[in-house]
């Protein structure tokens, strides 16, 4: 049982670690007009949907904290948002057919827009940057489209990884 747990949490932590590394480094080379997709949202949503609310919340908190520590102005802002996104998404775990793509895509889109609206609200609007339509057209919508597109591809990969881990878990549980 222990080795199975190690596999589950080990692979989870590695995935989170490399998501952050990729997002902050070579993802810039696939930017389109200065916009990069948000891998972190994709991964957090996938954790929530495929593994439940606790794993979703942990994934969100860890990725959010890393972003806050390395790039944020304050510590806790993204951690708080991402944790609740993972946690809320986790409530859909068990309640949908996991091989359907509609719910993951919808949730990713909603989460991406929500995060960007919050960023705009708390950091740009507070400084008196009122041109919401410019930010909407140049940042929020392009990032939404790009994230959903990448999320569509990535979710299938994550889904397969998760199924193979779960298969091992179930077979081990059956043995005992």
């Amino acid at each position, binding site marked *: 049982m222990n080795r199975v747990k190690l596999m589950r949490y080990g692979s989870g932590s590695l995935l989170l*670690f490399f998501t*952050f*590394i*990729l*997002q*902050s*480094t*070579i*993802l*810039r*080379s696939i930017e389109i*007009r*200065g*916009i*990069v997709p*948000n*891998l*972190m949202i994709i991964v957090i949503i996938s954790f929530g949907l495929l593994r439940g*609310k*606790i794993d979703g*919340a942990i994934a969100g*908190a860890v990725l959010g904290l*890393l*972003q806050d*520590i*390395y*790039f944020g*102005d*304050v*510590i*806790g*802002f993204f*951690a*708080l948002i991402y*944790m*609740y996104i993972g*946690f809320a998404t986790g409530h859909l775990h068990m309640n949908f057919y996991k091989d359907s793509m509609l719910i993951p895509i919808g949730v990713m889109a909603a989460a991406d827009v929500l995060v*960007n609206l919050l*960023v*705009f609200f708390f*950091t*740009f609007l507070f*400084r008196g*940057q009122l*041109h919401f339509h*410019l*930010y909407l057209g*140049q*940042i929020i919508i392009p*990032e939404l489209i790009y994230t959903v597109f990448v999320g569509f591809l990535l979710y299938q990969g994550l889904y397969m990884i998760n199924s193979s881990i779960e298969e091992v878990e179930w077979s081990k549980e059956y043995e005992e």
Partner: protein
Amino acid sequence: MARRKSKINATNMVAIIAIVFFFLIIVTWETRDEVSPVEKSIAYVIIPVQKGVTYFGDWLVERVDFVSNIKELEQLNQELLEQVDELTYENQILDQSKLELQRLRQLYELDDRYADYPKTGARVIAKDPGNWYSVFTIDKGSADGIEVDMVVLAGAGLVGKIIDVGPNYAKVRSIIDDNSSVSGIIVRTNDLCTVKGDLTLFNEGYLAVDYIADDINLVINDEITTSHLGTVYPPGIMIGKVIRIEDDPNTLTQIAYINPYADFKNLQEVLVISQQWLGDE
């Protein structure tokens, strides 16, 4: 099963952690110059990996570019060789003028306004994950003598300033960031201005200069450098060239858009002026 039972507590657990995060936001709201031990210890794991991945990514992109652009590179090489000849000649003349200038300065007891600042090279290893900010990290930190508020250059132009330093990394906020504003001077007319980063111009890579009085006769290609009024940036560092001028009908002022000298799209190596500038107060 044990897991079913613990689910009741999950909401509470998340709420408690949320309160902790909220508290952290308040604590770090004003300042966070001190890099906490937690941040430091994570840095020792994250930074080397980021470095490796970035080096690999840059290398890969360079290979691909090299193969696809080999014709252009040959032509570019030719042009650059010609330019080197021209510049060498100009440089000799400038050297002579410099000697003369030094002599005259001594004569008039003037300070070197645009002295050579000590510089350290550094490599960009990571960039802000999102699309809202233009903050990046470099691979030199307090161990290499980097301190907060040091100035970062790339090529001939101003890139930004250090906002946070860890043992083996430092965070740089670039001047195209929406939060950034730099006191500048229009070289030809000697008028002061403020150069602001603007996210809505970010994709084009331009900077905006607001509120230029209508009577200033600005023309395209005017050079803008940092002014002597800045407290962080030393004077005389080139920022960029004016590429577009617009009238703002509401405030009866002009807005200029400038093209920065530093190439923000492909920042790989930067120079850090390893000396803090203390403004004239």
